[in-house]
């Protein structure tokens, strides 16, 4: 008996905190942590809407579950590649601070 809005507010807040983390932490792993939090907020959102949708429709719905599963997969893929990149960059540049990785700077 929880209002849908509570979940949405929670998800928005978690997203905002994650965004803040991703924007401000200097360490590249910190950025990745922020992104993970944002993805988690998205999952909460998707499943809250899934619940709402099942309730409205009265029959089981699968789209929301599928979307949530895809987000999980993408999050896992993103973390593994991201961390591997950070470790590889750390090995070459001896830093995990994102601002020092500016090889692409023109």
């Amino acid at each position, binding site marked *: 008996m929880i209002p849908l809005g509570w979940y949405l507010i929670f998800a928005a807040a978690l997203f905002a905190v994650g965004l803040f983390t991703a924007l401000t932490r200097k360490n590249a792993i910190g950025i990745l942590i922020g992104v993970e939090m944002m993805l988690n907020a998205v999952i909460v959102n998707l499943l809250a809407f899934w619940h709402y949708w099942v309730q409205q429709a009265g029959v089981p719905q699968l789209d929301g579950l599928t979307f949530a599963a895809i987000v999980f997969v993408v999050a896992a893929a993103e973390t593994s590649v991201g961390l591997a990149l950070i470790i590889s960059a750390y090995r070459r540049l001896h830093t995990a601070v994102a601002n020092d990785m*500016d090889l692409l700077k*023109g």
Partner: protein
Amino acid sequence: MMSEWVVPVLWLLPLPPLLAFGAIVLFANRSNRLSHSLAIGAAGLSWLGSMLVFWRAVTTEHLAEHPFGGWVLWLPTGETWLTVGVQMDALGAVTLFFVAWTVLMIFIYSVGYHNFGAKRGVDDRAGLPPHGALVKGVDGHKHHVPSLEPMYARFFALISLFAFAMYLLVVSDNLLTLFVGWEVMGLCSYLLIGFWYGKPSARAAAVKAFLTTRVGDMFLLLGMAILYSLTGTLRFADILGNASVLAALAGQVSPVLGLSWAGLIGLLLFLGVVGKSAQFPLHVWLPDAMEGPTPVSAMIHAATMVSAGVYLAARFFPLLSAGWQPGMALTPTMMVMAVIGAGTALFAATIALAQDDIKRVLAYSTISQLGYMIAALGIGAYAAAVFHLVTHAFFKALLFLGSGSVIHGMEHGALHTGEHEDVQNMHKMGGLRKKMPVTFVTFLLGGLSLAGAPLLTAGFWSKDEILSGALNGGFVVVFVVLALAALLTAFYTARQITLTFLGTPRSKAAEHAHESRWEMTLPLGVLAVFAVSAGWAGIPETFPGLGGLIPNWFGEFVGGHALEHEVSHSPVPLLTSLLVSLGGLLLGWLVYRRQVAGAADPLAKTLGPVYSLLKNKYYIDEFYAWLLIRPARWLSETLVADWMDRRVLDGILHGLGRFGIWLGEVLRRWFDLPVVNGAGDGVGRGARWLGMVLSPLQNGHEQTYMLTAVIGVVTAGVAFILLVVF
């Protein structure tokens, strides 16, 4: 259904080249032989599948009502689904036919063009065309011969990917996967035009092609989005095969310019076609794209990419012409197509008159011929446009490959004599008919077909059909413009053939040119057969004398479901096409047959200033440079880099006094007109402010970019709330 077995074949058609691409990139790139075997093998498989599908399509009754194919769901988007599917109908089948043939031929040709088996040159570097290698001949003399392309495997990987994209585009049953193929081709053309990335001109041409086509693609994407939001589907069968959807789209008025929704979507899709098929005003990338290797030119400019644009326009012809019946006034969208198509046909043909580079003539000729097809679609002559698409693909691929063979032969001569001539300049050629007989005969056939030499060649039949479509539909202006363009086409074709092959050699390189290897001449021969015979499939039944001898298979097969105005074959367009093609050919030959080495182009004398206007392509490149590129450069280099970073920031450091002097100098130099002087102050201050605000943004730190993006999103959100919610 009787076509069960063919549907899996259809699904798998694009796959072999993609697998070949992956295999070459990942595993085979060290072995040139393995690379090209994989690529050609894959192209051969796809070719075989295409022939099966084509055969199935032509033997299927009522193909127009029941195209075969299949589809699966891909992505749920709320209430509707995006789908993936394949479909084959008459338009698809004929397109598939010429794509399969030309692609296979171009692959085989590439082996010879890139000198497979030749020695690697000492000075050759990846990213530059091979310079030639020194070998010791049987007589003990050392001489230069063409050397192996340093990035041989890479080339085959890229053209395989390109072939995959084209197959994908042709078999798609919906706009989304078509768009995927479309964009992958855009990427490949970028990579292939810039194949010799060591040359600055090739790099520039690649960027130009990519950015110019991107302009069109943006509109295509917009049209796609509107179509999807209105109909909830992107499948051709659900949109184009559904009269009620078409009627609904044609009946409602969109908020833009009073066009109907069908008209608006059609216009947006057509703008995508303009970019891809290099129509005015987005034609500028195509001539520059000649920087790529010649097989690439053939691939991009004849067989696949530019054809894809016309294919899309033909595919969406029911939408483009929604609400129009033969005999009625054209819809605004069709009017735009007819005007741009006919205009481009004439405009590009005039430019082709004054070009000296053998490939550039062909490039402009391609633009002109594509204009023909677009104009034909614009006036509702659907079957004629598709017919010309097919015949043009064959003869233009032949011409491009032939010109590549000529260039190759000239290169051989230039290396042999050590003469550093421009091997693509037609004024340096001449007399090549004796040195390169196979190339000459095939090129001649292709050229005659392009010029529309009567009765024999494919180009005659398809062009004649467009012209008669224009006249019978009552579009006299279009008819006259296209007839004029046909005259010019015949003229520049005669000029090209005369300058290249006839007469006597006008340079040492031309004297020592010799015939290309069989890998190159074999595709020429095969394509020449099609360049001549493809036209016989579509001889109108009402044609005097010949009509009815061979049934007009093409018109029936393709035109079956389209709005075709079948009227009696009036003698006017026939006489016109005879006159312009023979007249143009004869005139071109007469003017150029006595051309001697070092002499100016006879046209230059006759036409005077007009000639230099044509030679410089109406200065459109310069105009675009002035309109778009210079301001963008100025913004980035002068305003941001120079003013903001260097001058503004340093200026602050060095004190305001210096800044004042600098400002005075800049103002004197840049704004010396008294009128601008007053505004200059404001501009300077604005630039300084902008510089201070913006310069920290370009620091290479992704978090800053991210923050900027988020701030943009928040601003947009706030604006949305303020404007919409309250």
